């Protein structure tokens, strides 16, 4: 069962956050990020706030509220989910004169993200696309994992079983993230953290992409060494139960 509040948290704090990585892999995103500076604030009833700062060649995601040039209000989680599904529109609270930016450059950015997160066999034939898809999918999936662990009923049960400490998710020759548990709540961070007690290491970006796209089963990846595990194994076991819920929220 998919919980709408969890879906909204995933959309706000995982999918939207992945825009951060887009300029590094996509020329159009780089061009937009190099243009006019705007800070878009998302206010979602029952979920929280987050801001995207676009400009100076970068896209930065900031959880929580703060100064913005555009503020979009979603009265309930379902409203945010409708926007992500393309079936609803936000209510602008600030920046009414900047609707053109939202419909233009910002929409282009989200289209480019969808391009990389929704692969087709034709797109995957390109090595550069496969790499971008893998890196952005990894980012989305593991940020989504923490939101699911903190919000979805089954996710919370499994997060509650994780001992305090982090799991380092590393890709040989690619990015790394850490999922840190404390008191049954999860937080995803970039890179390694001192709290890490266990590791989940992909042998390469290609293998990470295959697993995240469902082309490679995790059990098979473990058996063939494409995914190696080590350290405080019980936490990995519990985290994997949450990882198994991620496709429900991202599909």
């Amino acid at each position, binding site marked *: 069962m998919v919980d709408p509040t969890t879906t909204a948290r995933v959309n706000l704090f995982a999918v939207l956050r992945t825009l951060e990585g887009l300029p590094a892999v996509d020329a159009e995103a780089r061009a937009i990020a190099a243009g006019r500076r705007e800070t878009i604030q998302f206010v979602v009833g029952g979920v929280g706030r987050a801001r995207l700062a676009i400009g100076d060649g970068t896209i930065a995601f900031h959880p929580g509220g703060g100064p913005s040039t555009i503020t979009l209000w979603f009265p309930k989680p379902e409203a945010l989910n409708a926007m992500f599904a393309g079936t609803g529109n936000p209510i602008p609270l600030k920046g009414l004169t900047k609707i053109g930016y939202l419909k233009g450059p910002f929409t282009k950015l989200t289209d480019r993200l969808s391009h990389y997160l929704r692969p087709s066999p034709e797109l995957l034939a390109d090595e550069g696309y496969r790499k971008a898809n893998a890196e952005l999918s990894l980012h989305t999936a593991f940020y989504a994992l923490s939101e699911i662990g903190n919000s979805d009923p089954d996710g*919370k049960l499994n997060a509650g079983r994780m001992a305090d400490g982090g799991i380092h998710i590393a890709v040989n020759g690619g990015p790394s993230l850490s999922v840190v548990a404390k008191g049954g709540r999860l937080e995803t961070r970039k890179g390694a953290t001192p709290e890490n007690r266990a*590791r989940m290491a992909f042998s390469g970006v290609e293998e990470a992409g295959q697993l995240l796209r469902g082309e490679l089963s995790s059990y098979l990846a473990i058996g063939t060494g494409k995914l190696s595990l080590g350290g405080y194994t019980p936490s990995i076991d519990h985290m994997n*139960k949450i990882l198994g819920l991620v496709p429900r929220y991202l599909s």
Partner: protein
Amino acid sequence: MDTYTYPKSRELFARAAKVIPGGVYGHLGPAEGCFMPIDAYPLFSSRASGPYFWDVDGNRFIDYMCAYGPNVLGYNDPDVDAAVAEQLKDGNCVSFPSPKLVELGELMVDTVDMADWAFFAKNGGDATSFSLMIARAATGRKKVVLTRGGYHGVAPWTQKAGHPGVTPEDVANNLYVEFGDYEALERLFAEQRGQIACFMSTPYHHPVFEDSRLPPDGYWKKVRELCTREGVVLAIDDVRCGFRLDVRGSDAHYGFEADLECFCKALANGWNISAVCGKDWLRDAAGSVMYTGSYWLSAAPIAAAIACISKMREMDVAKVCAGKGRKLTDGLVAASRRHGFDLRVTGEPAMWFMRQSDDPDFVLHQAWVAECVRRGVFFTNHHNLFINAALSDDDIAFTLEVADEAFAQVAKADPREAGRRG
């Protein structure tokens, strides 16, 4: 000492992965088996004999997992296998049971102290699920008290809420206490008075990842009295420990008497059969529960169980395994100390659990176990190990030699920091 490689295992795994989910699933597979790092481990065996198995690359291992328990006399025990061969001449899976069924029932009642009757199935999980159904049928109550971290099989009711394929309703009647905490159990029984059908527990606590815990002094006597007072069926899951601690049942080993006792693993030295033994007052309830399976009364495993129990009684297998276990674990601890490590051993000697002290993230232990496996001693990282009666003094000596070299290898480069960083 040369270390092993596994090219044929890898080839076979690639083939398996195309037609079998996960390649090798469950506890014998690399994920659930915690094979870390994977390159230290074989994935398929080709044959087994006594305390050894050989992998498909021809590497020999002393097997301290004993197929996760069933191998108690030694693989391919000649007496057990001869009984099976003899039975197969007469038949196996037939429309009516063989007289051997009655013979095994009588032998179980004669062997297991608490048993007034015996019922046979195939796996340990059949026995635990059946026991719960008997308790519910007998008491008209629906709840079951389990110990946290206890393992009773893979049926949905034995699993955790939030796990794949498990609904909240599957585990809605489960209540949990810490093993050995009598006061907590007493409080729970009082809070849930009249609703608890069954308290199910292993005779001592042998979870994965954690030290084993023996029952505190007087614990089982008090639990027995509490269950009797509250009308709760006391079911002992002796699937893993049964016969290895005491051929009379592990309740007898710890000085109490269960109402129901589940056996599997060592019952037939690897032939597929499990059993529930029970007290007279539960006989009618057991008979009232519809519970059966296609192969449950097949004669060959029954013949194996008769031969295995007879041999275990004759040699006092529990005493033999405990003695070998003590000798081995004392040697392993000594080897660790020679290299500046502190191997901690808990549980019963015939099925001990071990880990390194000062290793909260298991990195040292995983490195050491991997070095042992590469040299022909098969341990797993986070599950209890098992002794079988075929293990010789020479095997123990070889194991200790390997353990010593493995500790030396781990001492060369402390893997803890690297392990955490990935």
